């Protein structure tokens, strides 16, 4: 995966990013830079910016540095920082907003996570419920990363043997959610 290249982001091509980041900044405005979030984060070892540092850059309005980092995409939503932040800030939710911002821009260094989520949601939209095999297949195909599925081959075989994933599942649940998705998109574009 080409993680390193192409991470310089041209801000002029993303006019709404700065205002979206302003909303996120308002969420963490009372931050006192104590570092409790960093000390609480199970993924900090893999991040390029510590969570505390990332919030500092958010407060400074340094959009490009925040979006170029892998930090927010490495959040696994464990809510430990949200629980412990002495200012009671909604940190995990603010990171969710950063993920949404990045998803709208399809940042290439975050490509694998972005594709995963989009395929997942596409499956929900079509069927109402997730058909695990279908969305994993789409995900792998779009990654065009032929060695990636191999890491999962062992698990895939074991799931298949137990009848947990099949290639074709009957349609279930409330059917598709196309109308609901269209409505949500319309409302979000309006605001």
């Amino acid at each position, binding site marked *: 995966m080409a993680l390193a290249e192409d991470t310089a982001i041209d801000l002029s091509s993303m006019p709404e990013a700065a205002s979206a980041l302003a909303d996120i900044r308002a969420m963490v405005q009372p931050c006192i830079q104590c570092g409790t979030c960093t000390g609480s984060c199970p993924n900090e070892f893999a991040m390029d910016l510590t969570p505390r540092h990332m919030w500092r850059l958010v407060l400074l309005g340094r959009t490009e540095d925040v979006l170029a980092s892998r930090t927010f995409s490495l959040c696994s939503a464990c809510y430990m920082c949200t629980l412990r932040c002495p200012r009671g800030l909604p940190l995990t939710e603010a990171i969710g907003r950063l993920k949404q911002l990045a998803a709208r821009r399809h940042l290439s260094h975050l490509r694998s996570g972005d594709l995963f989520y989009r395929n997942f949601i596409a499956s929900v939209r079509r069927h109402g419920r997730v058909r695990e095999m279908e969305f994993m297949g789409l995900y792998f195909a779009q990654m065009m990363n032929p060695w990636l599925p191999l890491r999962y081959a062992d698990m895939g075989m074991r799931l298949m043997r137990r009848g947990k994933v099949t290639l074709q599942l009957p349609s279930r*649940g409330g059917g598709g959610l196309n109308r609901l998705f269209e409505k949500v998109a319309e409302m979000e574009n309006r605001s």
Partner: protein
Amino acid sequence: MKYLYYPGCSLEGTAREYDISTRAFMAAMGAELTEIEGWTCCGASAAEAVSELLTLVLPARNLALAEGMTPPGRDILVPCSACYLNLRRVEEKTRGSHDLKDRINEALAVEGLVYHGGTRTRHLLDVVSRDLGAAAVARRVVRPLTGIRVAPYYGCQCLRPYAVFDDPEAPRSMEPLIAATGADLHPWTMGSKCCGASHMNTKMEVGLKLVGAILEAAQGADAVVTVCPMCQINLEAYQRQVARQTGVAGTMTILYLPQLLGLAMGLSPEALRLDLNLAVTGGFLEKFRQTATAA
């Protein structure tokens, strides 16, 4: 006791045994579950990465369906921690905000649904530990799991950010339940540490580190018990890769809580579908067999 039941997508796929064992255990406890009709995906961890409004509207659709079920007033039982948090978040956030509820209802109107805010979403562990209780489980134990050592794994999202039924950092709600089965407790501090959630799909190296640390701390236990399909598959499906990375060899049995409780209550491994679990060791099954002769 009567509950509405929201299984969620995983329980129809990779976590079928969680669905089956939850239903079997609750029936054995005399509790009645009614599945919410026409339920759809809660958005899992994906909706949040894509759209803020969708993160609320997808679960709210199910809450609106739950409100339409008769008789009204039943709590919604949810075994998956991610689904639980998604549904619960809508309840918590709309409680203080009519604007938000109106926005959600504007979207739900295309489905002919309305969410009034009258639901109560409960995690399975909450219901088992507080509504049913360890004493009621103990009364039904016919096959004490003597000599089996169990590590309780809670994960994140049934504990945080909404601390509803347990200490969000040092949870203990499973301990009396494990004691009720006659099993021993594996003392550890990893019960509320993150398994990496969907990192295994998108950033596997990071996920393996987190799972590796949990499995390493579980050494000495005969089984780890979980209350979430995401935690379960992360702990059970990648043990070979973890062994390669950390050098901690050997397979660890990973069970869902209702499977463990069910075994002690005399439900068979077949009825609890232990054959569907990805990691149940011969050693564990042998110890379980020995409890029969002891009983």
